[in-house]
């Protein structure tokens, strides 16, 4: 079912149940898994709380429907939008307008004193009084005057904000020379939201149609992340990977296929049965000990990704003991020691950039040379039990890619994975030679978020890739 509130301002079937169903439907279309049992819970919860309190109503719905923090975030956005639209659709259909008597909203007529208004808004923002902010937003719109509006909501919001002289951060002293408290950016955004909402309401009332509903922008729905959170998420994905890699061996242990008879132990066991080898003894299967080699590109073309990659490396080092890590640009350099001796991520990043010694002359990546060096340095240690993971964008800057050397690396190593910080779309464009390398990899993945990393973990562990 598409959302029932199209541009025609159809109010949909009456009753709260239908409205809630519509709301859940909209949540589902944004990827929140709302099952029937969740909806039943939501109804049960609503029968216990007071509907007149917006906060209680919302929390009761959230507790029963949104079951993770990501879901909660989407829930908040949809809740705001959906019930606003629903109310407006209903109003349009029933012909309810705010100034039905024909008079302009209260307080119009005399010109507003912009300074006074601005002062009142500051106070409301400082106190965090949502209701007052909403009222003041309406006053501000009235004072600003519809005639001056551009008709584009976003533009008007910014115009009004500037007219009122509201900017985030510390404030210049007022006219009387008194110091004014700084405005919190969050609060200002909150006020802008009220402005936007009221302007939209105004627009809907005039045109008597609702603008078409759009899916949420990707930017809105992702949680605001700080490097800390990212780091924690990376650690989580890697510890998951560790568990998967560790259990990989266990699965194979039970199978008889491909096992070797251990002659010595079979003969020894046959003594019990008078020298007749009744029971065969097999060589125990050793679980795969993940011996991992990670090669990480730290050149300028992957600057944005390299912090992410280094944090992946950092997390890997926390989880695996048999891990050797390398960074490369033109040359390759082993940094296992750095990671083992330094616990602090910032210090690691700094040490790598200062003493990695990987840039030679130009600072451009030279993949061909890197493979040659890697192979000579490490070839004796590579065996079918080892896993090689390359983190890089495969941009050779026009230099010889030496794919055949890479093929040798791939042949010696048990498994080889490539994580590319660029979207698949950009592979093999420009100087990217991903295709040349990809054929030798056991898997090549785009990887610039923790979600991709998790996906990679899933694939490596043999599970189906997580849905995007």
């Amino acid at each position: 079912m598409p959302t029932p509130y199209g541009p025609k301002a159809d109010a949909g079937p009456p009753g709260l149940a239908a409205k809630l169903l519509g709301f859940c439907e909209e949540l589902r279309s944004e990827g929140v898994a709302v099952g029937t049992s969740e909806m039943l819970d939501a109804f049960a919860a609503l029968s216990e709380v007071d509907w007149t309190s917006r906060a209680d109503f919302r929390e009761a719905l959230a507790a029963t429907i949104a079951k993770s923090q990501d879901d909660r975030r989407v829930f908040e956005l949809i809740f705001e939008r959906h019930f606003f639209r629903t109310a407006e659709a209903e109003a349009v259909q029933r012909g309810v307008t705010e100034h039905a008597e024909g008079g302009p909203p209260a307080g119009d007529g005399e010109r507003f004193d912009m300074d006074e208004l601005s002062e009142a808004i500051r106070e409301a923002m400082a106190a965090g009084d949502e209701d007052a902010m909403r009222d003041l937003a309406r006053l501000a719109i009235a004072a600003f005057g519809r005639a001056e509006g551009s008709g584009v909501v976003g533009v008007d919001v910014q115009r009004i904000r500037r007219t009122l002289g509201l900017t985030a951060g510390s404030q210049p002293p007022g006219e009387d020379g008194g110091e004014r408290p700084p405005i919190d950016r969050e609060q200002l955004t909150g006020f802008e939201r009220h402005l936007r909402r009221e302007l939209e309401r105004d627009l809907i009332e005039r045109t008597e149609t609702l603008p078409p509903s759009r899916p949420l922008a990707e930017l809105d729905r992702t949680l605001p992340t700080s490097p800390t959170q990212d780091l924690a998420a990376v650690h989580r994905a890697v510890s998951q990977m560790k568990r998967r890699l560790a259990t990989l061996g266990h699965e194979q242990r039970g199978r008889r296929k491909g096992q070797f008879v251990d002659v010595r132990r079979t003969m020894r066991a046959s003594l019990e049965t008078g020298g007749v080898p009744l029971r065969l003894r097999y060589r125990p299967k050793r679980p795969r000990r993940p011996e991992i080699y990670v090669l990480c590109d730290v050149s300028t073309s992957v600057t944005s990704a390299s912090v992410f990659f280094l944090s992946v490396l950092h997390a890997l080092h926390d989880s695996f003991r048999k891990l050797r890590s390398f960074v490369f640009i033109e040359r390759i350099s082993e940094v296992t020691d750095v990671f083992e001796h330094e616990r602090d991520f910032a210090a690691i990043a700094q040490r790598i950039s200062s003493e990695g010694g990987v840039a030679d002359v130009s600072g451009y990546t030279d993949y061909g040379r890197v493979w040659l060096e890697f192979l000579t340095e490490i070839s004796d240690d590579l065996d079918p039990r080892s896993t090689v993971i390359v983190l890089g964008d495969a941009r050779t800057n026009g230099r010889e890619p030496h794919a055949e050397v890479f093929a040798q690396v791939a042949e010696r190593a048990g498994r080889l994975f490539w994580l590319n910080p660029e979207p698949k779309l950009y592979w093999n464009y420009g100087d990217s030679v991903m295709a040349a390398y990809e054929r030798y990899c056991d898997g090549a993945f785009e990887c610039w978020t923790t979600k991709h990393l998790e996906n990679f973990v899933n694939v490596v562990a043999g599970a189906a890739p997580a849905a995007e």
Partner: protein
Amino acid sequence: MPDGSVAEVKEALAAVGYLADESTALVSFLAQKLGKPVLVEGPAGVGKTELAKALSRATGRELVRLQCYEGLDEAKAMYEWNYRKQLLRIQAGGEAGWEDVQDDIFSNDFLLTRPLMQAIASSEPVVLLIDEIDKTDQEFEAMLLELLSDFQITIPELGQIAATTMPIVVLTSNDSRELTEALKRRCLYLWLDYPETEREMEIVRLHTPDLSETLARRLVEVIRMVRSLDLKKPPSIAESIDWARTLLLLGAEDIDQETFAQSMSIIVKHRTDIDLVAERVGVKLADPLRTES
């Protein structure tokens, strides 16, 4: 605990020393009304476990706690047959027929109850706390499903044991792994985060009433500043309270650089963190302009 409205629940929780915010109070209220388990997630040290304890105090119910860890199995979580006693019974039985003994040794007398069983079988209503559910494996979660949705446990030899009284179930998770959909579907969800300045101040002042208001505010501000740094382990609410008590003992008037350096180890507990905090926060405290801008 009165359960007439959200506000009453909030008051009851406050009366036992737990200052709940709106959503916490509402979810606690719904948990009782709907009889559904509550899944509480959030960073370490925001009072997830404390919520369950407070609920038990406020309702006057006994708290049954199951601490989860990797490798926890049903023998340790639900029930176990007391096989030593069973053996004794068989040996001591002497002349009794096989039928009698067989029926006898699989009865309640030979059952060792573990926390989950205890919560279900209790004749008084209890609060069941399943702490750090994310530490267990998915199999254990699956085992919990029957308990969480129907409040019953099936023992093959005995049949189903259903709860006679409705327990309040609180599950906590540090979000160290994604819980299964099936488990989440059976629970109400509550995300607890570090409290806002005002509420944390109230909490600190509730536990250390002798601390002056200005000092409490200063303390919470510094704590928030420390939390905003990229730390291995940001200070929890419990540590804020500990720090407040320490300051009280030290007789500190204000948090200056010296006091901070002395007592910092109460709130920051990693060597690298200490360096970072000393560098960032310590310097700010020395600044006479303070941290307002």
